[in-house]
């Protein structure tokens, strides 16, 4: 009778071993796959228990905060849609965007920089909490920019040319990040594409604001000087393509300064063709076209065509920002910033400080040079050209009493719709504190629509 007993016990041992094997399979071997199974909402739940860091603006306004319900935290955005283009959202169902996405590690406290604080808090039993972020955006300026743009589709970017710190960034249409869970379908299918940040992700033909790049190239290569004389007959034929001026104006004899101030297409086409596709492409690239943007939240790559594919007609069109050239409003702001900052473009950034919740600074963004498209002499010449635009050219509507504004208008032709209205500017011209780029879709000329918006933003930025 003992043998059956031993066998029976052996059977039970085998059954229990089978338990251990299966348990090991589930808890160790299959666990990584089970954890990311789409039916597994545990990870999300885990995140909801973490108190995310608070995001505040440069002037101390709270932009993203938490509401606690039970043991869970819910993200709230007190300023609603005003901040959504760059702040983004944090949704358990739809993921994250903007600062909430890119700085998730810091905000949720997974980042290494919080390490010691976290260990300490675990030891003393403090709740787990993410790091706070301080942004460069000034909400006063952000509000002025948003109001100035109003409910017109477009974007406004304001940044400090000396550091690259973004002071305001507006895109319209926007969405309210507080509604993302409830109204996702609506927001996502909205034909106005509110989820797109037009300032960094929108690609538009730049039109005449691109002349900042072309003029910079022409001056630095010595192709022209500000005083070089040209004659305009209202038409310039390049490779069979007839270049005309906006509103078919004829300017006669003029110098390069005048060509820039009045945005004479025929002269720029001539200068562009003289420099050639390669030089134009080199300078476009030097200004940031065809490059990965250092913008931390990710930006579309502004586009300048491959010179090998460009015939003379293409070169002529590209010389005044038409043809295949495409740019984000941010890139135009950076091009203007190059002029404002003595030829150097600083990397644009949005987060100035990462702080633990005891308000100890963990990380601070240091301004860094991104590109150096112009030397300081060329930059100075360009500044004078841009001053002339505001004083006597197409940009007079951006002029501000008591402050010298420098700028450039753009009126970019698009097929089957009104032209995009552009304006890029900085002020004060002799010691630039702010660069502003404005784009309004299909709104008319740069001087009539975009320039006045830029003027309001500059005034506010300078505290006027």
């Amino acid at each position, binding site marked *: *009778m003992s043998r059956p007993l031993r066998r029976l016990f052996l059977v039970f041992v085998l059954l229990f071993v089978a338990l251990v094997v299966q*348990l090991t399979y589930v*808890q160790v071997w299959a*666990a*990584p796959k*089970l954890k990311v199974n789409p039916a597994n909402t545990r990870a999300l739940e885990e995140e909801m228990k973490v108190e995310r860091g608070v995001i505040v603006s440069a002037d101390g306004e709270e932009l993203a905060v938490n509401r606690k319900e039970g043991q869970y935290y819910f993200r709230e955005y007190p300023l609603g849609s005003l901040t959504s283009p760059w702040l983004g959202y944090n949704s358990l169902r739809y993921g994250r965007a903007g600062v909430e996405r890119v700085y998730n590690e810091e905000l949720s406290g997974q980042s290494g920089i919080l390490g010691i604080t976290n260990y300490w808090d675990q030891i003393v039993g403090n709740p787990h909490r993410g790091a706070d972020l301080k942004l460069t955006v000034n909400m006063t300026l952000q509000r002025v920019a948003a109001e100035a743009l109003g409910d017109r589709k477009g974007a406004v970017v304001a940044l400090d040319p000396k550091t690259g710190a973004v002071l305001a960034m507006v895109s319209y249409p926007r969405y309210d990040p507080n509604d993302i869970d409830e109204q996702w379908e609506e927001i996502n299918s909205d034909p106005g594409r509110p989820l797109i940040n037009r300032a960094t992700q929108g690609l538009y033909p730049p039109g005449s604001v691109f002349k900042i790049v072309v003029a910079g190239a022409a001056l630095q290569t010595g192709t022209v000087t500000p005083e070089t004389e040209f004659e305009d007959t209202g038409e310039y034929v390049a490779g069979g393509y007839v270049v005309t001026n906006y509103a078919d104006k004829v300017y006669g004899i003029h110098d390069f300064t005048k060509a820039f101030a009045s945005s004479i297409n025929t002269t720029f086409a001539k200068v562009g063709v003289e420099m050639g596709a390669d030089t134009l492409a080199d300078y476009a690239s030097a200004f940031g076209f065809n490059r990965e943007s250092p913008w931390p939240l990710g930006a579309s790559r502004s586009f300048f065509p491959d010179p090998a594919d460009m015939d003379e007609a293409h070169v002529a069109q590209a010389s005044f920002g038409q043809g295949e050239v495409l740019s984000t409003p941010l890139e135009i702001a950076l091009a203007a910033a190059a002029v404002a900052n003595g030829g150097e473009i600083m990397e644009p950034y949005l987060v100035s400080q990462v702080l633990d919740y005891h308000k100890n600074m963990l990380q601070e963004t240091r301004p860094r040079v991104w590109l150096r498209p112009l030397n300081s002499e060329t930059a100075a010449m360009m500044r004078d050209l841009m001053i002339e635009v505001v004083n006597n050219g197409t940009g007079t509507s951006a002029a501000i009493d008591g402050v010298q504004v420098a700028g450039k208008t753009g009126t970019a032709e698009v097929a089957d719709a009104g032209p995009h209205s552009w304006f890029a500017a900085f002020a004060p011209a002799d010691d630039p504190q702010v660069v502003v780029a404005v784009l309004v879709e299909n709104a008319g000329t740069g001087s009539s629509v975009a320039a006045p918006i830029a003027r309001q933003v500059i005034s506010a930025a300078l505290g006027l």
Partner: protein
Amino acid sequence: MSTRNRELVFLVPALVLTTLGFALVYTQKSSVLTLSSLTYGALFLALFAIAHIGRRVLAPYADPYLLPITALLSTLGILFLYRLNEKLALQQAMWLVVGLAAFLLVLVFVRDLKVLRDYRFLIGIAGLLLLLLTAVFGREINGARLWVAFGPIRFQPAEFGKILLMVFFAAYLVDFREALTVSTRRVLGVPLPPFRYLAPLLTIWVLSMMLMIFMKDLGTSLLFFGALLALLYVATGRAFYVVGGMALFIAGAALLYFIFPHVQTRIDIWLDPWKDPTGKGYQIVQSLFALAAGGLFGRGLGQGYLLLQSGDTIIPALETDFIFSAIGEELGLVGAVGVILLYLIFTYRGFRIAVRARDDFSRLLATGLTSIFALQAFLIMGGVIKLIPLTGITLPFVSYGGSSIVSNFVLLALLLRTSDSVARQEAAEHRLGPRPAPGVGGPRPAVGTGA
């Protein structure tokens, strides 16, 4: 160290686990430590001290490991219940008191295994009645008819019925053992006993099928069948019963699969819970997620994701059938394997009693009780980790449930009584002379009834 003091020493881990565990869970809950954790610790100390003293007085030669293992398991159970639902923990603590009272009562009234043999038919009928009670008056909860209500008190008669029937079958098989091992004809070279000797096998099969058909209780049915088959095998030493039993089981299972959508669903969910992870497969899928979240070392007591905001458990029946998932998540593979080991040690000690037994009844009783206990632990743990289809039964001593706790304490008492009786016999033999070599025939007292 003497056997008795060994038990006392092994009770210490259970006490430490309770006090530390409750302290930990409590700080998780309210970040303030109160006397509550200590209260539970003190309660446990008192209860198991009483159980230990009772055992020492009433069954002094009994196995010293079974009670500490029980203490550890019930401690773990109440700890997890406290972490999940304080009210249930309190009720469980109350049931623990009742269970320990039942434990002592059994030791007091069953001083001699002879009592059980003498009243075997009464016990068998009582066991059957308890099952019938469920079949007739039972209330269906969660698709299975398990509960019988007497006013405010609800209990699961099958939990007790299975123990009584096990006692009955152990006694019955002692009577018929000889007859069952006689084979008179061979069919295709297989020795087959005459048909009437097939009766026990068919009886337990029919009983199990009835359980399934009338109570829709897959778990208890499987438990009965498996444990009785084990008993039959040990009683006769004939593999025929195992093979035949398996054949009947497969036939029965196939039959039930096609007749009962209830069973069909269980099997289908087991085969592929991912087909409907938010519906039918929800429970097992969430259990797997919980185990995966636990990983090797677990997320720590009180740190698992077990409760919804509403206080409901994420996994339905987490406090009862699925408590092993909670353990797996919070204590990890290490903790869960520890629990499996506890059951394995319990099983080993149980079979050790059977091996050492000098008489058939003690041996079969120890085998039956141990088998039913081990099989129940295996079935539910295997179910929640998707090793086998899920059967809704409790994890002995750990799951929430009055009937389960009390009946398992009765089982423990009977096992300890058997152990004590076996040890006394051994001692008596030592005094009389050298004992016969175990396992090889030899003269044996026909029916042992203790010292």
